[in-house]
């Protein structure tokens, strides 16, 4: 039988050793988000500084490439040096690496949750294609400015940078709608595409990401300005200009409250105390953003302080930490779904769970175990198949978020009941998508692993236990 014949799409499952899959996608995703947002903020920064360079200079030298004399009459004499200096290279590198890590995200998402990315492609492929068009314009404009910027007239420079900035922000606009849909798809996840795109968390999320992009651009600019061969006063003047683009950070608390208000109540509950790990990460993201925002607004803009290259680099690192923590929370808040009410983190739809409760979690799984010889009996082999199908997306057996560690102190009865009533054991777990034999098989597998995987292990076959597990499953319907 071809794996394509299975009505539920089963995909081959890869193991990443002690790393849980969330760490793999998180590692790639956070780097990509950081680079991509910097490329967007960097574009806005270049446009702003070019505008500064041409203000007043234009009257002295209209429509021609600005001469050094004309530049000296600009309201910000060194702005042009910044625009033509190291910063465009940084932006260029970030958007090339951003593109490559974007491709990496696609491949990694397939590794971690092929069905989820497939669902998103099905739903939003045309808008994803629009995002690609925007990104293509961004890349062409960026390269053109990098290659020919110094030879262009003032007006053309401004147009090219405006095109870059707008195209890069539009790519954020479109990808934001697709990503925010995962958590707040609305009452009808299969409804019109624009209804899904402009979902409840679209606007606060877009506002937040835009502000983060501007702040990253400003902070990176402060680092670059410190490397320029200027006097301290000249650098201070440029830093004050750059810092202005980070001042929208003052709106972050409002957007944060708005975001929390529109996400599902249970997700909000996990974030605000229900899950201490998520609460701590929210605290880290919020605290780091507060520190950066306060430093920029109070220190640089109001008090007109100077920021050294070392401090600016530290702020960029802090911003990376805030981005990482924020992305962790955004991903975690979707539990137990990858697309709310549509697909569980196990890549099973709510409608499919009922069928799997009858026929078993792995009855249709066409892929055999890679290490079947490791298991002493068929029940453990079945347990390994169930673990691969239902647990492996978020857990490992002995590594990160390990099943063996989580359940090592549980009694046999606890194991059976907690797994059978999984969504009642912990609210961010999906319902168990298998039958009583599957529950017993994975219970035995976990006990065997906790015991150190001995070469002999008895098979259990107690009708009373089976009936009890079946009753618990019935008490926790999908």
């Amino acid at each position: 039988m071809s794996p394509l014949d299975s009505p539920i799409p089963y995909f081959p499952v890869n193991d990443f050793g002690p790393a849980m899959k969330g760490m793999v996608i998180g590692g790639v995703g956070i780097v990509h988000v950081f680079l991509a947002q910097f490329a967007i903020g960097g574009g806005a920064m270049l446009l702003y500084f070019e505008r500064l360079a041409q203000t007043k200079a234009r009257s002295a030298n209209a429509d021609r490439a600005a001469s050094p004399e004309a530049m000296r009459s600009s309201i910000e004499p060194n702005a042009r040096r910044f625009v033509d200096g190291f910063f465009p290279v940084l932006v260029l590198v970030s958007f090339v690496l951003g593109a490559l890590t974007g491709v990496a995200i696609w491949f990694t998402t397939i590794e971690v949750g092929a069905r989820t990315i497939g669902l998103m492609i099905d739903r939003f492929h045309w808008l994803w294609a629009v995002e690609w068009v925007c990104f293509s314009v961004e890349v062409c404009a960026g390269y053109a400015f990098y290659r020919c910027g110094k030879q262009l007239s003032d007006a053309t420079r401004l147009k090219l940078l405006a095109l870059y900035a707008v195209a890069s922000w539009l790519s954020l606009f479109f990808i934001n709608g697709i990503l925010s849909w995962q958590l707040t798809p609305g009452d009808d996840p299969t409804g019109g595409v624009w209804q899904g795109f402009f979902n409840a968390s679209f606007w606060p999320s877009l506002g937040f990401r835009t502000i983060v992009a501007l702040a990253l651009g400003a902070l990176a600019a402060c680092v670059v300005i410190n490397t320029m061969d200027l006097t301290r006063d000249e650098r201070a003047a440029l830093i004050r200009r750059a810092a202005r683009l980070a001042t929208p950070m003052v709106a972050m608390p409002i957007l944060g409250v708005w975001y929390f208000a529109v996400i599902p109540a249970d997700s909000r509950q996990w974030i605000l105390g229900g899950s201490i790990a998520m609460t701590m990460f929210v605290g880290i993201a919020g605290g780091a953003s507060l520190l950066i925002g306060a430093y920029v607004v109070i220190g640089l803009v109001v008090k007109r302080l100077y920021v050294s290259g070392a401090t600016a680099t530290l702020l960029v690192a802090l911003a990376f930490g805030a981005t990482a923590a924020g992305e962790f929370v955004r991903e975690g808040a979707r539990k137990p779904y990858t697309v709310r009410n549509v697909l569980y983190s196990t890549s099973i739809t709510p409608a499919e769970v009922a069928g799997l409760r009858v026929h078993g979690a792995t009855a249709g799984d066409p892929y055999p175990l890679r290490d079947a010889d490791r298991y002493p009996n068929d029940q453990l082999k079945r347990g390994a198949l169930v673990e691969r199908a239902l647990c492996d997306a978020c857990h490992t057996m002995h590594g990160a978020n390990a099943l063996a560690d989580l359940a090592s102190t549980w009694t046999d009865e606890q194991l059976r009941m907690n797994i059978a009533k999984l969504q009642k054991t912990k609210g961010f777990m999906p319902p168990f998508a298998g039958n009583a034999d599957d529950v017993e098989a994975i219970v035995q597998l976990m006990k065997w692993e906790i015991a150190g995987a001995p070469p002999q292990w008895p098979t259990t076959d107690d009708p009373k236990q089976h009936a009890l597990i079946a009753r618990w499953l019935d008490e926790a319907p999908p």
Partner: protein
Amino acid sequence: MIQFLYLATLGLHAVFVGYVAAGTVYVAVQAVRHADDPIADATRVRLPFMLGVGITAGVAPLLFVQLLHQRRFYTANLLLGPRWMAVVPALVVGFYALYVVKQLPRWRVAAAIVGSACFAFVAWSWSELHDLMLADARWAEIYAAGERTFIGAGVAARFATFAGGMATLFAAAACWQSHGPARRLAAIALAGRALSIGGGAWLVARGFDATAAGATWPIVLVVATVADIAAWAVLAATPRRDGALTAATATGVVVLAAALVVREGPRLALVEPDHPLAAGAGGAVAFAIAAILGTLAIAWIVRTVRTVQE
């Protein structure tokens, strides 16, 4: 519509990555020979940009293939697993190697060889993935064995076919761009065509059905290839004839289009039926508008750059 967009964007992607892959090999060969070569000089400068655009252009076919062959594409990705994902670090290394080739003469030979190896690895991996997508009867067995490579019957032949195509694409682009010796580029183009023909014949001998998309396309491919070879032969004999280069370019475009259709032929019958969500997904009008505006914007950028360069 999706199939057309897939093929069109794949063709666009092929032009850029063909230039990069074959161009890097050419630069590597000339660097090893320590040759003072205007073609290599011009190519070195353009390679990073061409790779950036090539990767960007590659995102679109990557998107559309996930609609046409979702389960096959994802399964092949997963079966090759981390070995498949190695294409991303290979591209990163290759990209920076191109900058080293461009900026640091001292490291040029090593960087060009590293870049060539990276791009060859990526091209080979795509050939492997393509064949593995079609081998669904063997997926379970491959998974159980934990194999991370798929040396199917057609992988080497497929790779040879496209490597030849890349060489010809590079020759055509370089001919338009540089003032170097067109005779040498014509020789590269003809060698590329020979390699493609050999690879194609090998594929057919291995059971590839060239007529799966209809009997017309292989005929178009053969006729266009013959015309293309003739145009390049004229260019090799009389290198200053712009008409021959225009003809070679025109026939090259037809060869590329026909080759892509013939390549996809066996997969046409395997295109997945519309998924419920995909069938009802809106946004096509938004894409059409964006495509028009984006094309206009890019055309303006190209015109601006050309004006400056002239």
